[in-house]
């Protein structure tokens, strides 16, 4: 889990990468390491939590659903910080799934008794990140996230 240069990283921008399998324990450890990486490079605690939560929600879905039928998940995550932006890529070779277009959008205005249990993860990612993108490349899903670090250090929610 040692930080190293991400894909296409020609600059000396701070970089972090790790591989994990279908293991929620490994995911927990990776999130703590990602948090340490962000804090070490001066990312504010609020921005760090937004980033950690977003990676957590997406990788949790990959482990629980996208790679359920596979023996090993081979999830790969890269993070870099450059030009005031935190950049993340997550790849897996599970079933093709675009979370940003295929996941149902929750109605956050429903009263308690009508609120369905679950289904918030992807919505949180889209709310907390500056950009989100999905591509299918050969047999792999690639998710790209960015979070601007130069703006939005106040609460996003109204």
């Amino acid at each position, binding site marked *: 889990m040692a930080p190293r240069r991400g894909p296409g990283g020609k600059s000396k921008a701070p970089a972090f990468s790790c591989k994990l399998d279908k293991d*929620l*324990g490994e*995911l*927990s450890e990776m*999130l703590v390491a990602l948090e340490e990486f962000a804090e070490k490079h001066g990312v504010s*605690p*609020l921005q760090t*939590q*937004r980033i*950690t*939560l977003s990676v*957590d*929600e997406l990788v*949790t879905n990959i*482990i*629980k659903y996208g790679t359920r039928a596979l023996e090993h998940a081979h999830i790969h995550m890269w993070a870099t910080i450059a030009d005031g932006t935190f950049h993340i890529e997550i790849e897996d070779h599970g079933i093709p799934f675009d979370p940003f277009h295929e996941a149902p959008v*929750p109605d*956050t*205005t*429903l*009263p*308690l*008794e009508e*609120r369905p*249990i*679950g289904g*918030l*993860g992807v*919505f*949180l990612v889209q*709310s*907390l990140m500056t950009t989100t993108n999905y591509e299918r490349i050969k047999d792999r899903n690639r998710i790209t996230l960015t979070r601007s670090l130069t703006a939005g250090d106040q*609460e*996003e*929610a*109204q």
Partner: protein
Amino acid sequence: MNLTDETKNGVLVLSPQGRIDTRTSSEFEQAVMAHAIGPEGATQVVMNFGGLDYINSTGMRVLLILAKRLAGVKGKLVLCEMKEHILEVFKISGFNQILTITDTEADALERF
């Protein structure tokens, strides 16, 4: 994740500490339901998040289940002492509209 409990003025105060993520949320769910639901479970519950550093959507799911069950038995759940990043996520999810959230534990206990 660790959960402590105490009773104050007849209200059960549950205080989770550490991180509630996908790995620890089922442990959190079992601990919460053991205290707050069941034959002798409390129906008036405060959840003090002062020691909670992290919660993801699987942990928030547990709070929604608890709030629904308590509402079904005319009980009540009040959350308090949330850190800024956790409060942000609760607001985005609209949880601040369906759950009662106060700044301090003392404020929370006054809601009963």
